[in-house]
C-alpha cells in the first residue's frame, strides 16, 4: 500500500502546437489499478533540487491496466512543470506519481449527463465519457477549442458518443451558450465542466440563474499536492533542529529524525498528533479539520500530519 508508484514515459506525441500527450506504463513488473472516470494523478517532476508536483487528469480507458495517458498544455507562465514536460521529458524516463484520486466523479444516480470540455479541459471529460459509454448511460458532450487544429480528441470522442458530440470552434466565432444549453433539462440531469476559469464561472452562473441545484453542477477539482514550502523546526525537549522539506509533512520530517511523535489518522481528523507550539516566526498554515477557530487564533497548537509553517522557524514542545 505505497503512497507513490514509479512509471516510465513510454510514448510522447505532439498533438497540436503546445499540446503533448504522454503515455505512461508501470516501471518494472506489475500493472496499474483501474480508476473511475474523472480521476487525476499527481506527477513528481525533477525540477532542480526538489520534486515539483503537478496534477493531470487521466484521459484513457479507466479499465486499461498497462498504459495511462495524460495530455499537457505548455503554460508559458507556469512554475515550470508543463515546461519541463514539453522541453525536458523524454521517452524512457521514469517518474514518481501518486495513485489516482477522483474529485470530479460522475454521479451514478444521474439520469442524464451533460459533459462540457474547454480546450485541454477535455482530458477528464474523455475518461468520464468512456465510463458513461461503458455503462450505457444517457449523455452528450460539448467540446470547445480555439481553432480546428486544437480539437485534438474530437475523433476519440466521436467514437465514444457518435452523433452526441457538439463542437464549438472559437476561430469560427462559435461558442457555447450556457443559458440555452442548461435550460429546459429534465430533473435528474447532471452537468460537468472542465475548462478555463471564465468558462466554468459562466456555466455555473447560468446554472444558478436557471435554478439548478448546486448538487447537480460539477466542475473539476484537483487534490492539493501534499507538502508545501520548506521551513525550519526546533524540537525543544529532544533538542533537535532541522528543515522540513517541501515534499514531507511536518510529522514525516519529525519521524525521519527518529523522534517519536503522536499520530493516528494522518489526515487531520482525529486530533492525536496535536503538539504545543512554543514559538513560530512565520504564519501557521492549519490544514486540519480538528482545531477550533479559537485554537487556531491562539497560535499555540499545530496538527503535525497536515499543517505547516510559512517561512521562518517553528519551535515545538516535543
Amino acid at each position, binding site marked *: 500500500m505505497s503512497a507513490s508508484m514509479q512509471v516510465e514515459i513510454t510514448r510522447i506525441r505532439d498533438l497540436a502546437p503546445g499540446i503533448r500527450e504522454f503515455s505512461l506504463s508501470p516501471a518494472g513488473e506489475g500493472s496499474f489499478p*483501474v480508476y*473511475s472516470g474523472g*480521476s487525476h494523478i499527481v506527477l513528481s517532476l525533477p525540477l532542480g533540487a526538489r520534486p515539483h508536483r503537478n496534477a493531470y487528469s487521466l484521459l484513457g480507458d479507466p479499465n486499461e491496466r498497462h498504459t495511462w495517458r495524460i495530455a499537457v498544455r505548455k503554460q508559458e507562465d507556469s512554475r515550470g512543470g508543463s515546461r519541463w514536460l514539453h522541453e525536458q521529458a523524454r521517452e524512457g524516463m521514469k517518474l514518481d506519481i501518486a*495513485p489516482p484520486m477522483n474529485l470530479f466523479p460522475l*454521479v*451514478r444516480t444521474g439520469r442524464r449527463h451533460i459533459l462540457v470540455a474547454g480546450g485541454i479541459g477535455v482530458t477528464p471529460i474523455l475518461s468520464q465519457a468512456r465510463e458513461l459509454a461503458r455503462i450505457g448511460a444517457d449523455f452528450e458532450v460539448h467540446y470547445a477549442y480555439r481553432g480546428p487544429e486544437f480539437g485534438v480528441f474530437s475523433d476519440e470522442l466521436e467514437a465514444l458518443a457518435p452523433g452526441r458530440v457538439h463542437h464549438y470552434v472559437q476561430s469560427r466565432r462559435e461558442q457555447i451558450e450556457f443559458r440555452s444549453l442548461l435550460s429546459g433539462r429534465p430533473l435528474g440531469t447532471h452537468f460537468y465542466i472542465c475548462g478555463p476559469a471564465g468558462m466554468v464561472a459562466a456555466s455555473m452562473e447560468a446554472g444558478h440563474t436557471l435554478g439548478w441545484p448546486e448538487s447537480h453542477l460539477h466542475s473539476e477539482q484537483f487534490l492539493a499536492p501534499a507538502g508545501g514550502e520548506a521551513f525550519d523546526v526546533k524540537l525543544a525537549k529532544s533538542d533537535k533542529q532541522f528543515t522540513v522539506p517541501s515534499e514531507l509533512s511536518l510529522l514525516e520530517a519529525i519521524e525521519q529524525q527518529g523522534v517519536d511523535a503522536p499520530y493516528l489518522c494522518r489526515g487531520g481528523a*482525529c*486530533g492525536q498528533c496535536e503538539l504545543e507550539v512554543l514559538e513560530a516566526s512565520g504564519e501557521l498554515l492549519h490544514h486540519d479539520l480538528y482545531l477550533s477557530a479559537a485554537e487556531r487564533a491562539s497560535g499555540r497548537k499545530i496538527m503535525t500530519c497536515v499543517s505547516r509553517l510559512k517561512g521562518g522557524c517553528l519551535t515545538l514542545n516535543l
Partner: protein
Amino acid sequence: MSIAFKPDETFRGDYSYRNSPVAIRRFPFPFPQDQYMYSVNIEPHTKGPAGSVFENAFDIDEHYVAEMRDRAITLERDPGRCMSLPHMIDAEWDTLELIMESLARDYPDLFQLHRDGARWSWINRPLGLEQTFTFGDVATLPCPPFEYITRQCQGDFVIMDQRDNDLWADSGMITSQADWSLMFDVGMSFKEWHGPVPLAHDMGIFERALKYLLMLQQGRPVRRLNWTMTINPRLDTSPETYPEWGPDRTTVTPDNVGDKVHLRVELQGLFRLPRSNGMLFSIRGYLASLNDLATHPRWAKRLHRVLTTLPNELAEYKGLVRYRQTAIDWLAKFDDGADLGTGTQPE
C-alpha cells in the same frame, strides 16, 4: 499458515461457539485507557503483526466456516439482509475484486484466483467452492457479485456511494449487526445513519470523520475499532429478530455472567473502490465472553474500569443497562486497582 476451522459450532440454538486460547489472545481488545469516550479513532489499515487480526486486509479465523453457515441460515430466513441499489453494480464488482485478490494473496493455501483477461477462476477450499466466471458479466455467477463474495468473507459489509459531498449506504450484506437494520438504513446518508448515536454529534465527530473519509484514497484503506456487548455468542442481533434475542438480556445472573456476556468488537475497515469511486465499509465482528477475557487479567481489570465509568447515555445506546452492574460485580474480583498504563495488550 493453516487454520483449524470449527465447522460445527453454532451462533444460535445451543450456542456451541467457543474461542481457542489463540483466538482469545488475538482478540482486538478495544480499550487502551480506563475510561472510554468517542473519538475519531481512525488509522491507516496497514499490515499488522503476524498472527494479529490486523495482519491482513480481511481477517479469516477459526470461526470462518461456521460464520458463513450462520450467514446462509439468516439469508434463507430473510433475503432482505442483502440489498444493493441498481447504480451500485460497478461497486459490487470492485468489492468482489478487492476481496478475491486480498484473500488469494493473504491465504494462498485456502483461496486461489486465476485471471485470464476477463475470464476468472476462483477456488475457495474451506467452503469447497470452485467458480469460473466472466468479470463484469453477472449472468456467469450464481448470484450478484456482491452477494457472491460476501457469502464467502467474514464480517458484514456496506458499500457507500460518494456523491454531493456525502456517503450513501446503497448496498449491504448485514447478518451480524449490533441491533441496526439494513432495510431501514439502506439509501441513507452518513449523517442520517449515525443519527441515533448519543454525544458524538456535539463533539463534531461525524463531521470530521466524513470530511476525512471523502478524501480517502485508493490503495490506502483505514480502520477503527467499535464495540458493544451481546448476550450469548449470537451473530444475528438485528431489530427484525429482536423477539428471539432481546429477552436474553434479562437472563444474566451472577452465576452465568462469565459465560453469557460477550464483549463484541468490530474491526471496521474502509476501502476506496477504484472503478466506482465508492467505498467499502467492512465490519468484522469478534466475540469474547467475560470468561475468555478473564484469562488475561489485564483485560479483566481494564474492562471493569471502563464499564464502571461508562456514561449512562452510552450504556443505554449500547443496550447494556440491564446487566452492566452484574458484569461490573463479577469483574471486580480481578481488579486490584494496579496502574495499567496505556495500551490494549493482554499482559
